[in-house]
C-alpha cells in the first residue's frame, strides 16, 4: 500500500505535534502530498494517515487536502486518488465546513484499517447509495447496477461515471463483442 504518514510533516514543516494549522503550512503540505501522489503507480490510491487526536484547521485543509481533491477531480493525477485515514471528528467538521462554504461538489473517502469506510464532504444521496453498492462488490458494470437497482442503463452509467470522476471508485475497461464496457471497483487499502 502506498501511504503517507502526516506525522512526517512535523519535522518537514516544523509543525507542533497533532496540529495541522494555517494556510502557509497547508500550502507547503500540498507540495509534499502532490509529489507523493505523483510518485505512485497510476490507478492506485495514496493512503494519507493522520495521527490520533489531531486537529486540522479549515485553512490548512483548504490549501492541502481540498486543493488536492480538486486537482484529482480535474484529472491532474490521472487515475490516482487519495484515501484519508485517522481524521478526528473535529478535523472532519473543519474540512466539511470549507467544502460547504466554498460550495464545492467534493467528497473524500475516510477509511479505517478494519476495512470500514465513510464518505465525507458533498455527495448526493443517490451517488452515496451507489458508492455503497460498489464497495460491496468485487466489481460492477452499468448494466449490473441497472439490473440491481431497477435503473435505466444510462442512469446507472451516469452514476458510476460521476463517482469515477471524483476518483471515489476505480475504473477499468474491456472491449468485447458488445463494444467498450467500463468496469468499476472500490479502492483497496488493506493490501
Amino acid at each position, binding site marked *: 500500500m502506498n501511504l503517507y504518514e502526516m506525522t512526517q510533516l512535523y519535522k518537514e514543516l516544523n509543525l*507542533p505535534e497533532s496540529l495541522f494549522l494555517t494556510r502557509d503550512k497547508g500550502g507547503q503540505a500540498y507540495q509534499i502530498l502532490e509529489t507523493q501522489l505523483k510518485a505512485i503507480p497510476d490507478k492506485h490510491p495514496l493512503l494519507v494517515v493522520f495521527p490520533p487526536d489531531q486537529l486540522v484547521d*479549515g*485553512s490548512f485543509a483548504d490549501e492541502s487536502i481540498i486543493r488536492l481533491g480538486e486537482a484529482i477531480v480535474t484529472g491532474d493525477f490521472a487515475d490516482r486518488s487519495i484515501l484519508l485515514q485517522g481524521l478526528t*471528528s473535529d478535523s472532519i467538521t*473543519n474540512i466539511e465546513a470549507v467544502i460547504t462554504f466554498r460550495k464545492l461538489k467534493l467528497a473524500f473517502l475516510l477509511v479505517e484499517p478494519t476495512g470500514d469506510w465513510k464518505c465525507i464532504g458533498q455527495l448526493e444521496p443517490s451517488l452515496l447509495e451507489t458508492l455503497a453498492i460498489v464497495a460491496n462488490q468485487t466489481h460492477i458494470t452499468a448494466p449490473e447496477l441497472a439490473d440491481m437497482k431497477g435503473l435505466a442503463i444510462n442512469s446507472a452509467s451516469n452514476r458510476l461515471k460521476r463517482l469515477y470522476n471524483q476518483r471515489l471508485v476505480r475504473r477499468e475497461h474491456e472491449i468485447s463483442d458488445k463494444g467498450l464496457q467500463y468496469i468499476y471497483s472500490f479502492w483497496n487499502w488493506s493490501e
Partner: protein
Amino acid sequence: MNDCEVVTLPNVLGGDVLPVEQFYAALAEVPKAKQYILDAKHISFVKPYGIIALLLATRQLAAHSEYPLQLKNIPSNIHSYLQRMNFFNVSHNWLTTPDTLEESWARSAYTPNLLEITVISNSDDVLNIVSRASRIFSRWLILPDLNGLLSVISELCANVYEHSQDQLGCVLIQKHSSEQQGYVQVHLSVGDIGCGIRGSLAAIHKDIGPEPIKHLLAVMQGRTSRQTGRGGLGLPRVEQIVRQQNGYLWIRSETAALLRRGANDLIQKTSLTYLPGTQIAIGFQAPLSS
C-alpha cells in the same frame, strides 16, 4: 500643541464592548500633546478586549507624541494583572513602565490559566500560540469545545499576519471557571492597527464600495483578498463555531462593527470612532473538563 494631556481610563475596561467604544471616543477628543499620561485610577477590572484596546490606544497615542506615555495611579492588583498578562513587555516602546511591583507575578509558559498578550508576526507564531493554548485549555475544556477554540485562535491569528500588514498585532485569552457550577468561560481578543478589512479587500473588490460595514459583511460572506480565490473562510468559520457555542462575537474595523450573540442575527454597528485595523472579541461558556 500642549505639553501634556491626561487621559482618564474608564472603569471595567473591556467589561463589554461599550466602555471600550467610550474609551476610543474619548481618545479621539484628546488634544495633540507632546506627552500623554494615562490615569488608571478608575480601573477595577480588565478583560482581554479592554487590554487589547489599551495596548492599541497606547500605540496610537505614542505615534503622535514626542515621549512615551506614562501610566499613573494604577491599582496594585491591576498593575500585577497587567504584568502577568505581559502588557508592559509588549508595550515598552510606547509606555513608561510604572514602578516595579514589590511582589511580582511569576510568568510561565506552562501556567494553566491564561494566554498572555502574544504578538503575531508569522505562521510560526500562530503555531506556537495554538500549541500553548492547547496545553492551557486541555485542562479545562472538553472536545469539541477545545478544538473549536483552537480553530478560532488559528484562523484569527493567521488573519493578523496574512492580511493586517501590522507586525505587532496580538492575541490574549482569559478564562474563568466555576467548579461548583461545572463551567468555564473563555474570553479571547485579537487586535491590530493595520490596514483593516477594507484595506485588505479593497484592492481586488472594488464593487464593495467605500463603507467599512460593507467590507465587514463581505468578509463574513467569504470574500478574500487572495488572488488565487482560496481563503476567506476564516471569519465565516469562526462565526459558525461561536454560534454553535452560543457565544458572542464582536468584530470591529475602522468605524464599523458586527455583533453576534448566540444564534441571533448579526447586528451591524456603524459611525463608531475611527480606529485603524481590526479588533475582535469572542466569549463563550463551555462545560468544565472533569
